[in-house]
């Protein structure tokens, strides 16, 4: 089955066309600067060179039209006709409490998705726009929504309830939801496979360290706790997000600096994290360089990042009553031996022993712990698109 995987943001749409029989990417790319007069489509067929197309792409519908056209184009295309696209799988950030699994998109479902906008005002509206754009351009292809939150759906109440009046949970759905579900699912399954096991046999911790970062305790295949909460702001230190902090700080700062809600929100989401502490960059590569060259507070930012991650690993080991595997993934997790080494330092008491050489040279799927380390430490490049494609294929097949 050929599945078009769509990840629609505010001014961008990322896509991959995946053949689920071979699980190979036939083509992938991205439309950026949607709404601007010079939007760009970057497209790469699996066996060809990357091409760029510039045009007036005013909205998501036109963006999808461009994507379908380039997928069929004579020179850079990988299919002959739009009807070859068997189904479309969409990443939808927030599935609320309703969605424990991926679902086929129907008119009723669209209404339900709209009702979730309040929970994820920055993401869900764009995801919905992407769905509507595909409905217009590919009216015959069934569409499936795959949720970032679904993997965490079995988290127990003692992990998702916050210490505020319970009535607020009932009234507004204020609880921990967790995000990056597809990534945590993929890397724990793939990691277990690499060890010749299934994730149901293991107590695993997966560290998704990208520009947004979250860590999940996966106890015998089930997410039992995760660091992102009601929104993707909580938990680990991130590129520009604060992660955990004393909530009173926000109230204090709003009063001291006379900040509006919007300003306080931007402060925590865009001016904080690695960028805010270091004054150097939100990019871990530049933070590491800055730490070596003693620029700004780069070294401090790096330490805060790894220290907090270390605390979470130990806490989640306690939550599961032990630990078999730690997996690192996403931009920083896959590419920073320094972060991996610093994080695992002093965790020997948990049975985590890193092999420095393996850590330094890890590429692709890799085991970086020593032969005799009781806890296996892995690096697994994440593949959220593949999770979306697999789910989409499964759900569409069930319908037939």
């Amino acid at each position: 089955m050929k599945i078009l995987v769509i990840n629609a943001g505010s001014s961008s749409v990322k896509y991959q066309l995946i053949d689920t029989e071979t699980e190979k990417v036939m083509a992938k790319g991205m439309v950026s600067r949607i709404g601007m007069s010079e939007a760009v489509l970057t497209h790469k067929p699996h066996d060809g060179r990357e091409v760029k197309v510039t045009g007036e792409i005013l909205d998501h519908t036109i963006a999808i039209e461009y994507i379908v056209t380039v997928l069929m184009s004579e020179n850079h295309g990988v299919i002959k006709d739009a009807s070859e696209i068997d189904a479309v799988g969409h990443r939808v950030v927030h599935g609320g409490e309703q969605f424990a699994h991926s679902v086929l998109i129907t008119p009723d479902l669209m209404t339900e998705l709209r009702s979730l906008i309040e929970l994820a005002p920055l993401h869900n509206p764009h995801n919905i726009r992407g769905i509507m754009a595909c409905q217009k351009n590919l009216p015959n292809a069934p569409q499936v929504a795959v949720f970032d939150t679904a993997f965490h759906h079995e988290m127990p109440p003692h992990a998702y309830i916050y210490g505020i009046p319970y009535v607020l949970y009932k009234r507004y759905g204020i609880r921990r939801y967790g995000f990056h579900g597809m990534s945590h699912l993929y890397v724990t399954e793939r990691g277990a496979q690499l060890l010749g096991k299934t994730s149901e046999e293991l107590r695993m911790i997966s560290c998704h360290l990208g520009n947004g970062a979250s860590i999940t305790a996966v106890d015998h295949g089930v997410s039992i706790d995760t660091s992102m909460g009601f929104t993707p702001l909580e938990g680990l230190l991130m590129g520009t997000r604060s992660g955990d902090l004393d909530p009173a700080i926000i109230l204090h700062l709003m009063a001291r600096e006379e900040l509006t809600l919007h300003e306080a929100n931007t402060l925590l989401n865009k001016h904080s994290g690695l960028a805010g502490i270091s004054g150097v960059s939100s990019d871990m590569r530049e933070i590491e360089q800055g730490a070596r060259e003693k620029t700004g507070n780069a070294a401090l930012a790096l330490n805060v990042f790894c220290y907090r991650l270390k605390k979470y690993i130990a806490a989640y080991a306690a939550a599961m009553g032990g630990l078999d595997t730690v997996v690192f993934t996403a931009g920083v997790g896959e590419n920073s031996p320094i972060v991996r080494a610093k994080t695992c330092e002093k965790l020997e008491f948990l049975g985590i022993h890193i092999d420095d050489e393996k850590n330094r040279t890890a590429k692709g799927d890799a085991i970086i712990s020593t032969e005799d380390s009781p806890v296996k430490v892995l690096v697994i490049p994440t593949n959220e698109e593949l999770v979306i494609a697999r789910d989409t294929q499964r759900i569409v097949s069930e319908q037939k």
Partner: protein
Amino acid sequence: MPSTNIIIIGAGVMGQGLAEAVATSGEEVTLVDKTTKLAEKGVKGIGEAIDREIHKWGLTKSDKKAIMARIYPSSDLSQAEDASIIIECIPEYLETKRTLFEKLDSICDEKATLITNSGTLSISEIAAATERPQKVIGMHFLTPVTKVPLVEIVKGLKTDQHTFDKAVEFADLLNKQWITVNEYPGFVTTRCIVPLINEAMHVLMEGVASADDIDKAMKLGFGFNVGPLSLADMMGLDVVMSWMENLLSELSEHKYNPCPLLRKMVRAGRLGVKTGRGFFRYDEEGNRLPDTPLNHVVEGA
């Protein structure tokens, strides 16, 4: 330069704020003024406003880049030919506005919505300068446009429902709450706030309390964000006086008589933040300086 769907005429403070709000919403916008230099100065002003907002954590440098890339300065009114929304933000003189709308009438597409940002003038009188008064409507934004979540949508006598719907759509685009106003002098906001400011000046003039204490009382007592005298300084005392006079001449009620202290300060050129001195003192960036006792201000005037 691409032709944009939304055109703003007048690159002063109001035009700048609106252009920033439109660009922030994701739409492209052309900011027109009499000369390219003035239009570019307006765009520069937007950049400076965004820098202040970055400093206050409200925006990031990449937000600035994206917002600025959507704003095109121009001195060419004929740009309005392809636009569907045209908003006028030029100074509050009826004749200048009427002349502009007459010109727009000859340039713009027949389906275009023509919006005036006037806070006090008659929409119907402005609309009468065109052959299509049903397409003209008032949208009174308050400064700073990007911060104040309200807009008054003002229907002229002949404004049709379709035009009103377009105005609502535009307000929604900018994420503003709106209220409907049937044309009448001062609409709602100006009509209610100006007498309050005037009364505060009387209280000050009669020596009942100091300027600071009057503002403090209204802020803490009634939950105003800004006290009435600070507000007057921010609006400009000359502007407040012109509103009073406008209301007085339109409605002929004694309560709209400008307070003698207001007249005195306007004559002395103590116009508020923009001149560095009104009821309080300000530095060049408009930040309030340590308190100046009322007597100094009045005696100095």
